């Protein structure tokens, strides 16, 4: 029984990571109707920046904060420099840019930081007598960090003027411009926020899976499955979907398919959602008259 609970808890912990990345995907999807395939590699690059800062002697949380800020800036710059000229481009051109970004980030990460697998420190203690064998302190800490991030993001979008402007720009760009919202900058901010959230997810998952340039590729797949499951146009749905996929993955990995076939599950979930409930559990079904 304890083993089962342990699987569920660590499922929630990794689910939190998927939920963060899923939220990052949804934020860009809502504004642009494209899935940013490079979201995972961008997060990996950010995690390497954090590692470099920590190895340079920065205290963990200072490196954490600096990484978030740098990642935010990278996200903003990518939108302004690379995505902005693509605004009017056909879908396939945008997909091409996303795949190019993915490859560039992956190669640049390997080139700068080497392809060898590295250990990444956790800010949380190794063991704790309070938790018994139920969950590791890092899993609990990472889940808490994820929850804090999700609450902050929710509060930002729900209660601040800038958050309202960003939502408006995503829903109705023309009306937004007519009330004076600088829609281009809202998009850039969205990219910055998504990159920052991805960076946090990367720093939280790296102590569990170890750091290498392709660390996030599997995670991006789970996150995508989570986003689809919850509804790719619904941030809250995507977050719940991310947690659900984490738990499903861990339980199935332990009891059903074994660790080798776990990633296949993400694909099974993606296909099942697309066949049976394309809008996701919490997504809106969009009907358009022709």
């Amino acid at each position: 029984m304890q083993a089962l609970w342990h699987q569920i808890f660590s499922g929630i912990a990794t689910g939190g990571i998927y939920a963060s990345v899923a939220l990052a995907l949804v934020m860009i999807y809502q504004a642009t109707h494209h899935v940013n395939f490079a979201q995972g590699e961008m997060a990996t690059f950010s995690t390497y920046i954090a590692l470099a800062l920590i190895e340079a002697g920065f205290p963990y949380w200072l490196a954490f904060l600096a990484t978030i800020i740098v990642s935010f800036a990278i996200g903003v710059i990518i939108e302004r420099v690379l995505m902005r000229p693509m605004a009017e481009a056909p879908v396939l051109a945008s997909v091409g840019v996303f795949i190019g970004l993915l490859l560039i980030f992956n190669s640049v990460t390997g080139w700068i930081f080497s392809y060898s697998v590295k250990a990444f420190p956790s800010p949380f203690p190794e063991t704790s007598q309070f938790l018994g064998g139920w969950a590791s302190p890092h899993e609990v800490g990472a889940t808490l960090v994820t929850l804090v991030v999700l609450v902050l993001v929710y509060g930002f979008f729900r209660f601040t003027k800038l958050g309202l402007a960003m939502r408006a720009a995503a829903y109705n760009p023309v009306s937004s411009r007519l009330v004076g919202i600088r829609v281009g900058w809202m998009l850039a901010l969205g990219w910055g926020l998504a990159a920052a959230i991805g960076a946090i997810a990367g720093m939280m998952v790296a102590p569990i899976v170890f750091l290498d340039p392709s660390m996030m590729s599997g995670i991006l797949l789970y996150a995508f499955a989570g986003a689809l499951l919850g509804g790719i146009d619904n941030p809250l749905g995507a977050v719940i979907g991310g947690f659900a996929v984490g738990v499903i993955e861990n339980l199935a990995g332990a009891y059903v398919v074994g660790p080798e076939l776990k990633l296949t599950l993400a694909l099974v979930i993606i296909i099942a959602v697309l066949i049976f409930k394309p809008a996701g559990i919490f997504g809106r079904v969009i009907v358009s008259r022709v």
Partner: protein
Amino acid sequence: MPTLLEVSGLIAGYGETRVLHGIDFAVEAGGVTALLGANGAGKTTTLRAISGLARRQGSILFAGEEISTLATEEIARRGIGHVPDGRGTFLELSVEENLRLGAITRSDREVGADIARMFGYFPRLRERIRQQAGTLSGGEQQMLAIARALLLRPKLLVLDEPSFGLAPLIVAELFDILARINREERMSILVVEQNASLALALADHAYLLETGAIIMSGLARELRENAAIRRSYLGY
């Protein structure tokens, strides 16, 4: 009265298609100017050109400043509150959020008081404040769109066919409110309408557009008496 908006030699269109072939007109400060014309005459394109939503050439002087090269959001920030055709409602957001978006560029503390003042004109919005804007009726959405544009505290209110798709009773109510807004707020209005009799009753100046050119202009009350206009647009 001084001129608030002065358009001269305006050419506009979309892509390769040219819709306006060089038109001139003006809106006086505190006045109501109507642009009349049949479907496809270029009325909406004229408004979209003013707000930078259509490709345009020529001069658009607003409060003495050339705005024909500015981006849409900058034109809005200069003080043009544009109610687009189709009303431009933020369907997914609440009525209150729609209103707050109208005032999103303002940093003063009077937004709450302004929203309350809008409820004076449009009491039904107060009842629907928490409702999702997409669930409002067409008339309510038109009122919401006008309130949203006014919350920008514009110098000029631009209305694109406010009567479109609304029941006659609602339209009459709406035009009464627009006349009040013009009177009580000294709000300058540029309105595009297919319903010429309504527009001529509200406006003090009017221009008649036909296939991208202005074919007649003058005081609204003179145009009301004009035989050609009566036959073609007023139907009596």
